[in-house]
């Protein structure tokens, strides 16, 4: 995979994690983790299993509340926040174990991503029951946006398939579509390449880079495939046992001894 040319201007800090600590009973999931995410950059969070990476994303999402520390997003600092508020502020997410709505089709799943963009007035229960009128107009308008996402991700042929029947790689792609449909400012990806073969990974990388390039979306991703991390990320944060042990560009991280030790000498090229 070719190296990315630095052509997009990376902006100021849009997300700041400040001394975030999360404990579950006696388990210290995160201890005093601080890092920044700059606008329009691709930041990778890596670390051995159990390092607390998913927990960190969950905190950014508002699903877990930090015991101490805070998250500042777009200038607003908060400690406790309900997840749907975080979503309303422009944070979208994919999950480690695909969290699609298995009972619905691909199209419907992506349409759920449009949820926050839909006018609440036009889709209230009475209008919806009548359907013809404001609700139908909303549906059609947002269906168009959803179709753009479907075209972008090249999943037109599986539009109406119930997602439970799709192969794993396609499910992950649909999940990305659902996150993209929300037109987020910050996209959190939890192991988006997990379980994919080389071709699927190439496609996925292409999509991630295009999202960042075309829409200027800031991306934070957790990933285990070092090749992917080195190639597409601008900066890397390394966690181990809930603590941040390194931060820097991919080249710096590649040669950082602490990081290498943490992985016990495993480094992909």
């Amino acid at each position, binding site marked *: 995979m070719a190296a990315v040319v630095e052509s997009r201007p990376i902006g100021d800090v849009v997300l700041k994690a400040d001394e975030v600590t999360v404990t*579950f009973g006696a388990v210290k999931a995160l201890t005093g983790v601080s890092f920044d995410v700059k606008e329009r950059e691709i930041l990778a969070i890596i670390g051995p299993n159990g390092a607390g990476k*998913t927990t960190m994303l*969950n905190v950014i999402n508002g*699903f877990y509340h930090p015991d101490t520390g805070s998250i500042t997003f777009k200038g607003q600092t908060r400690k406790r926040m309900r997840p749907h508020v975080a979503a309303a502020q422009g944070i979208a997410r994919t*999950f*480690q174990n695909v*969290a699609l709505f298995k009972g619905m089709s691909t199209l419907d799943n992506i349409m759920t991503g449009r949820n926050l963009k839909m006018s609440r007035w036009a889709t209230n229960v009475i209008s919806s029951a009548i359907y013809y009128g404001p609700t139908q107009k909303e549906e059609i308008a947002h269906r168009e946006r959803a179709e753009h996402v479907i075209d972008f991700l090249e999943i037109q042929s599986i539009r109406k398939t119930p997602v439970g029947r799709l192969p794993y790689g396609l499910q992950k792609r649909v999940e990305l579509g659902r996150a993209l449909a929300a037109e987020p400012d910050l996209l959190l990806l939890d192991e988006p390449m997990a379980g994919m073969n080389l071709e699927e990974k190439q496609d996925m990388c292409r999509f991630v880079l295009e999202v960042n390039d075309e829409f200027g979306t800031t991306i934070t991703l957790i990933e285990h495939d070092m090749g992917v991390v080195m190639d597409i990320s601008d900066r890397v944060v390394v966690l181990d046992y809930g603590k941040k042990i390194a931060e820097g560009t991919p080249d710096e991280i590649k040669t950082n001894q602490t990081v290498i030790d943490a992985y016990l000498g495993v480094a992909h090229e």
Partner: protein
Amino acid sequence: MDVLTAIFVAPFLDMADSPAFFFEVVIGGLMTGVMYSLVALGFVLIFKASSVFNFAQGVFALFAAMTLVGLMTGTVPFALDKALPGMPAFVAIVLTGVVMVGLAFLVERVVLRPMVNQDHIIMFMSTIGIAFVLEGVGDMMWGSDVKVLDVGIPTGSFFFLDMMIQVFDLWAAAIAGVLVISLAVFFQKTRTGRALRAVADDHQAALSVGIPLKTIWVIVWSVAGIVALVAGIMWGSKSGVQFSLSLIALRALPVLILGGFTSVPGAIVGGLIIGVGEKVAEVYWGPLVNGAIENWFAYVLALVFLLFRPQGLFGEKIIERV
């Protein structure tokens, strides 16, 4: 103003007025509570081992009691106009126990095995199906009229410190106590008990470490069946063997919510609290609203509990992961 005093003041004055009566009500409530606990135990067992709420547990108790009466009086199943010689209570109880174990085999083979790893709600609904089937079969085998059950538990009452105590209730408490202790030991100390807890957590994981799922399920449902038999004997002796026995299942739900679905001591404590709560509410607050508060008091109490402590007094806290 009157209404407020009637609700918040008068009943407590009544209690203070005649403490002996109050304690009698409490004791009565405790005894009912013990009976609830007996039924709740069966639920806890199955839930602990398979995370399934067995709606049919009440019908199990009813079926066990019906079978017992049928064996003791020499009724021929399905052909109610003929008769066989009856048999003594002890023999009948053992035979009924065997029947319940057979029932466990049947349930495992026909219902549980095809439903491995299904959603818990789906399994719960299948137990509703089992309840209906067993109800129908029981009625067809033994007839749906009310029956009298007498296995020789001593009755009568005596006075202790101005309060009337029923001998039967004392026996019920003792039997429940023995049952609880043996079950608690079984779960904590034995290898089978550990295996049971593993199965409750994750069917597939348990299978993958070599725990024989089928055997475990048969064991659990058999034990639950025996517990149902005991509960059936106690309730049946007290109020006759009839359809309403199966509705006791519904009454056990609030008990489990209070005590926690996976806790044996919780089933006891929950049962006692519900029993006392119901009785006291009925006696002291019931007259204000025409009575029969008992019908819903337990549920509303459980509801309040659910809002503040969903895992019950002794249950395990539920942590969600993404």
